[in-house]
């Protein structure tokens, strides 16, 4: 009886040690990296990236998504892109540069407090469409804008 009690106590202690490690954030980096959608970032086309990300590549064209980007980007290494949408309940915003070696540039998961707005700077290998895909109320919407690149930013 007393042996069982000993084993029981030891088991509890071991269990709580793991709990403390998780609580202290020691295990966070791995947990965080596991969420990175590797398949989506390895996809070579817009459709494949969307399928990997959202399970569907059907996105309806929407006039409620505005992409602010230069018509001509002199330096492909730094292309400012702003995506602004008036769609409600935005769940995610993805930015895709169609002809980049890795087309999916960024994908944002929006919490309830986040507005449908993202602004960033991206690299573009050559002239292509920049596609913004917004997931709103479980549906995908897209808009595209062509950006001409005079000096690519993805090569050496």
């Amino acid at each position: 009886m007393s042996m069982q009690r000993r084993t029981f106590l030891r088991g509890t202690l071991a269990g709580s040690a793991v709990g403390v490690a998780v609580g202290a954030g020691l295990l966070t980096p791995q947990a965080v990296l596991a969420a990175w959608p590797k398949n989506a970032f390895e996809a070579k086309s817009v459709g494949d990236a969307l399928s990997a990300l959202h399970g569907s590549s059907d996105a309806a064209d929407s006039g409620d998504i505005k992409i602010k980007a230069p018509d001509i980007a002199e330096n492909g290494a730094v292309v400012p892109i702003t995506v602004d949408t008036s769609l409600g309940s935005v769940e995610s915003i993805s930015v895709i540069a169609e002809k980049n070696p890795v087309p999916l540039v960024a994908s944002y998961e929006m919490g309830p407090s986040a507005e449908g707005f993202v602004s960033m700077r991206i690299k573009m290998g050559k002239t292509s469409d920049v596609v913004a895909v917004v997931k709103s109320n479980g549906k995908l919407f897209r808009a595209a804008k062509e950006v001409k690149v005079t000096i690519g930013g993805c090569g050496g």
Partner: protein
Amino acid sequence: MAKGIKIRAKAKEGVTTVKALISHPMETGGRKDKKTGNTIPAHFIQEVKVSVNGEDALTGHWSGGVSKNPYLSVKVAGANKGDTVTIAWVDNKGGSASGEAKVK
């Protein structure tokens, strides 16, 4: 490698605009060193998290297609002056950093 994050957050009519500049090389892994011809290994931020007062507002997943020393701007509803905005990132080599600023 500098690991600084500069953050500005400004509240206006109920919406807080957060702007951040992160110091990071953002190597795609596809570039070659011009002198040696060796491929420069990939080193880029994979995940960025923006939170207000400890609550997640937005999580971004990035590829190497985001420019060097990334700039990010987002808008968050419901934050007030004096609230704390935190931005934390993790890169593909397991490196990470975070920074915070008060909403003005």
